[in-house]
């Protein structure tokens, strides 16, 4: 390997990058720049998806369809789901924080494939624009984010084809990201850093990337078949031509159930990084946390058919998928008890990051419990396609992932910008989001149990009051975005200077300047063998004298 090869290689080339804020608008290969590009781009789409959700809740204030025409309502509903899942949560919990943190955590100066990384990000804005623009060009897809045939085959084709193209681009982005994460974590680890010494987020991203690699291509293949059905009039999923719609559901949910774990596993990893720092305690039960992540990965791949209990699945299949789905509660429960044990007896500072994390724990437990309920066939048949499912799903992805995205922004903002966020505004944001969220989605359990179907713009007048309460909650959530937006913009300009390590954290990204230099560390790469060595006085830790494993035992 000679210098000639190295100089035209894919490695980081700091000299060619623009400096200052301009580099955040450039085709950079720096993982930190790409991570923040993911974050900001995702947040823009969060506002788009939120505006669509606002339109939905406005329509549902009254029991008749008066705000939007029905096909417009269907388009808005489809766009809301697609934008929020594929353009906000998946890119942000994986792409943004993964790209920003993983190279730090494994002690690398960039991701394994920096250019592929940039490609993975730059697929997202065009795909998102394509998706949103389809509403204005010819009318967006109308068949929901699941795009079930025969509805997706019989509704106007142009919007559906644009939807498929957009999701294929985003799936490609996801796969490229997954390849990069696995290669970075397994191959670029610093010599001396063992797998069982990595920060928990690395494990979460490893598990997530395995899910992405295993399931996203199946969705891509399925959507290609679906587009053949629409364009070339083949009969894969068209019953009129002998096709089988249930096969579409199998293939679709083989991706889209793991997609739930693609959205929440990174959140699990992030909260495992946030809680020990602010509770000043080691992460409780590191080894069980690792095994529970891998357990969720394995179980997550074999539970998809619980979405299809009403699709005529045979009894053995129902039994198998009920048991498998219920078993996911075990590793998830282990993680929750570990987080509670991490907090137990700690010196917790109740800042915004911790408040959002605690909100996450409460919401996710509620969502998890209704999830176990939904895994039971009789109950599932009762509430299938009702607002109970909507409530459950939003408790998982909004109450889980989005709360953790906000917690992570509050936690890592000093590292991103070198300035602190305003804590009072942050706590206000958290309270408003928590109240608004529970006001919006809590009552929807009741709606579902009493039989209000989802995806409708007109409903029985007896549900009016609950829907109005729900809409008020949605309004609160919309308002809660304003202090956050003001906070991140204002603090970037004139926030308090943070210093390198405002939280006295031990994970390696805090051992460099804020914001970090292009090569991550100005000097040598630190080797942190013990990322959770809290509980002993900081100066008393001598990593050269003791192994990481002993420290875990010594820490409280």
């Amino acid at each position: 390997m000679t210098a000639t090869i190295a100089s035209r290689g894919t490695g980081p080339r700091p000299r060619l990058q623009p400096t200052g804020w301009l580099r955040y608008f450039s085709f950079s290969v720096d993982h930190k720049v790409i991570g923040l590009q993911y974050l900001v781009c995702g947040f823009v789409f969060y506002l788009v998806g939120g505006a669509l959700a606002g339109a939905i809740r406005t329509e549902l204030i009254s029991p008749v369809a008066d705000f939007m025409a029905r096909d417009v309502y269907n388009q808005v509903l489809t766009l809301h789901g697609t934008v929020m899942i594929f353009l906000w949560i998946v890119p942000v919990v994986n792409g943004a924080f993964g790209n920003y943190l993983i190279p730090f955590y494994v002690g690398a100066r960039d991701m394994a494939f920096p250019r592929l990384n940039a490609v993975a990000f730059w697929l997202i804005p065009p795909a998102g624009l394509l998706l949103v623009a389809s509403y204005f060009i010819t009318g967006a897809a109308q068949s929901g984010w699941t795009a079930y045939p025969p509805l997706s085959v019989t509704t106007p084709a142009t919007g559906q084809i644009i939807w498929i193209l957009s999701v294929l681009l985003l799936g490609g982005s996801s796969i490229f990201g997954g390849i990069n994460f696995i290669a970075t974590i397994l191959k670029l680890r610093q010599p001396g850093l063992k797998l069982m010494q990595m920060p928990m987020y690395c494990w979460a991203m490893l598990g997530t990337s395995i899910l992405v690699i295993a399931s996203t291509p199946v969705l891509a293949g399925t959507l290609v078949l679906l587009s053949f059905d629409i364009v070339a009039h083949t009969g894969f999923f068209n019953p009129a031509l002998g096709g089988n719609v249930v096969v579409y559901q199998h293939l679709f949910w083989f991706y889209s159930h793991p997609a739930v774990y693609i959205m929440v596993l990174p959140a699990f990893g992030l909260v495992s990084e946030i809680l020990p720092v602010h509770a000043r305690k080691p992460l409780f039960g590191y080894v069980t946390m690792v095994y529970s992540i891998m357990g969720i990965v394995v179980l997550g791949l074999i539970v998809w058919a619980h979405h299809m209990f009403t699709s005529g699945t045979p009894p053995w299949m129902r039994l198998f998928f009920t048991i498998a789905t219920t078993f996911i509660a075990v590793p998830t429960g282990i993680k929750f008890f570990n987080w509670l044990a991490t907090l137990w007896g700690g010196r917790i500072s109740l800042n915004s990051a911790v408040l959002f994390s605690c909100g996450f724990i409460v919401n996710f437990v509620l969502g998890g419990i209704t999830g176990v309920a939904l895994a039971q066939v009789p109950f599932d048949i009762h509430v299938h396609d009702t607002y109970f499912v909507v409530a459950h799903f939003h408790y998982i992805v909004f109450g889980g992932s989005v709360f953790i995205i906000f917690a992570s922004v509050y936690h890592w903002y000093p590292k991103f910008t070198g300035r602190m966020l305003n804590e009072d505004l942050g706590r206000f944001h958290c309270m408003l989001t928590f109240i608004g969220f529970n006001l919006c989605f809590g009552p929807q359990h009741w709606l579902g149990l009493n039989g209000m179907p989802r995806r409708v713009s007109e409903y029985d007048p007896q549900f009016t009051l609950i829907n109005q309460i729900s809409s008020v909650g949605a309004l609160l959530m919309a308002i809660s975005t304003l202090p956050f937006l003001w906070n991140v913009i204002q603090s970037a300009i004139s926030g308090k200077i943070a210093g390198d390590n405002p939280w006295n954290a031990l994970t390696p990204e805090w051992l460099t300047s804020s914001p970090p230099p292009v090569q991550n560390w100005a000097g040598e790469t630190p080797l942190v063998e013990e990322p959770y060595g809290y509980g002993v006085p900081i100066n008393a830790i001598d990593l050269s004298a003791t192994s990481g494993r002993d420290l875990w035992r010594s820490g409280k």
Partner: protein
Amino acid sequence: MTSTLPVQSKSADVKEQVEKQINKAHGDHRIFGLAIFLTADAMTFAGFFAAYLTFKAVNPLPEGTIYELELLLPTLNTVLLLVSSATFHSAGQAIRNSNHGRCRLWLLVTAALGIAFLTSQMFEYFTLPFGLTDNLYASTFFAATGFHGLHVTLGTLMIFIVWWQAREAGGRVTANNHFPLEAAELYWHFVDGIWVVLFVIFYLL
């Protein structure tokens, strides 16, 4: 600001470390990344195969509409691809022995076998008694074999690129740096392996 936190450094020179990492980027982890990508690709095929097997199990077509597939051409195709794997391996051996001329010869033989495969498959498509939109089996058959044919086409293009890169001793593909060739070879073996599975599922079952 210098950190007082417990850190332990391994390497002294940053420049050396960066260099090492860049060199590492040209070594094992690129093949590793490609292997992960091929795993993802295999999952796409697995989706097609699962769909086909499910259609076959639960959607029996009326009597008389199931066509018997001719086995002659696909068996020939299987042999072509298996031989091409061997010739590609020979190309790899040749470059490891710094024999550029032989490497390029074997690459051309492999590409010729790939093109022969595509021609034969095209011929098969035109002689089949059913079309893309005739029925479910036909649609899935064309989707899976067509997707595989796309892979063979891309693989053949890769071979020509590698062939071009191995033109002379000073090219990109040398005895010390044959990553492009190794990557194309791994890809080609993968495509062959997928064909064997596809052949069993679509033609023999």
